[in-house]
């Protein structure tokens, strides 16, 4: 992948990076309820990028995939919020106790499914998008 492609996939991961570097490592907050939504959001933004660049004739698969990822992000956001409430309560006694809650699994499974699907699609279709972009740029330069 080119530098431009790395930038495309890396920019939407900035909230995740901020959560890890800022909230967790710098401020020392508990990252468990904060990590899942940026992961899901990363996948969602990557899918939106792919959705605006790919076209399947007479089908709206890319749109439905993006809507599904949005739904996963919503579930992740809600369950992460509830996970945060659990962590701030007296019942929380470490990672193991958080893993015993349903909210933890909903948050992280949904986030990872959405993110992995998006990254997989990105790795698969990004070379095509880059090739097309290069052709378009060359055509524009020739026209000028």
């Amino acid at each position: 992948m080119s530098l431009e492609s790395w930038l495309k996939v890396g920019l939407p991961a900035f909230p995740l990076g901020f959560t890890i570097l800022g909230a967790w490592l710098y401020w020392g907050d508990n990252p468990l309820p904060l990590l899942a939504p940026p992961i899901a959001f990363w996948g969602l933004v990557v899918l939106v990028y792919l959705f605006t660049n790919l076209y399947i004739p007479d089908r709206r698969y890319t749109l439905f995939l993006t809507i599904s990822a949005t739904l996963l992000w919503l579930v992740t956001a809600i369950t992460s919020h509830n996970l945060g409430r659990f962590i701030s309560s007296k019942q929380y006694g470490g990672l193991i106790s958080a893993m015993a809650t349903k909210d933890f699994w909903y948050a992280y499974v949904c986030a990872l499914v959405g993110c992995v699907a998006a990254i997989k699609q990105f790795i698969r279709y990004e070379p095509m998008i880059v090739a097309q972009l290069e052709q378009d740029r060359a055509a524009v330069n020739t026209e000028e």
Partner: protein
Amino acid sequence: MFYDVLIFASAAVGIAGVFVYSYKISHSRVYVVGIVREKAAALNQTVKREQDAEDLPASAVLGVPSAIAIEIREAKKPRCERCGRLQDFSENRSRCRHCGHAFSLEVASENEQPSETESRLETIQAEQSYSLKKHEKLFMDFDKRIRQLERESLVQSLPKIEDNRKQYEPLESVQ
């Protein structure tokens, strides 16, 4: 209770949607936006070349390189199922040169032998129709030239006719 049902239903629908539509996308013919513009530009170039060829004088047309036939042959070449780019099956390639998509055996076998014969026939047909068109134009030019020569010869012979008339006019008046 309501919260559990809502979260479970949303998660189930979301995960199922992601799996189903990822599968469907990976088994579909996916195009990159912008390919239509390229095709339109190529079409405009073809039309322009045809117009240029028609604008040539008829005498310069005989023995023209069959540019249109070459373009038709290019258009009939097999394309990759995923990225839609031209592929050359004669080199026994199993994957697309651009996106690495593996060709299905049906497409490859369809395009091996019959395509060469078909493209040859189409090339011959295109060349013949092209030359026929240009010959028609040549004949029209010949026809115009003959009419022009007739007109010129008529104009040149007009004074002689006038002289003859003047010679015979007094005789007619005498009679």
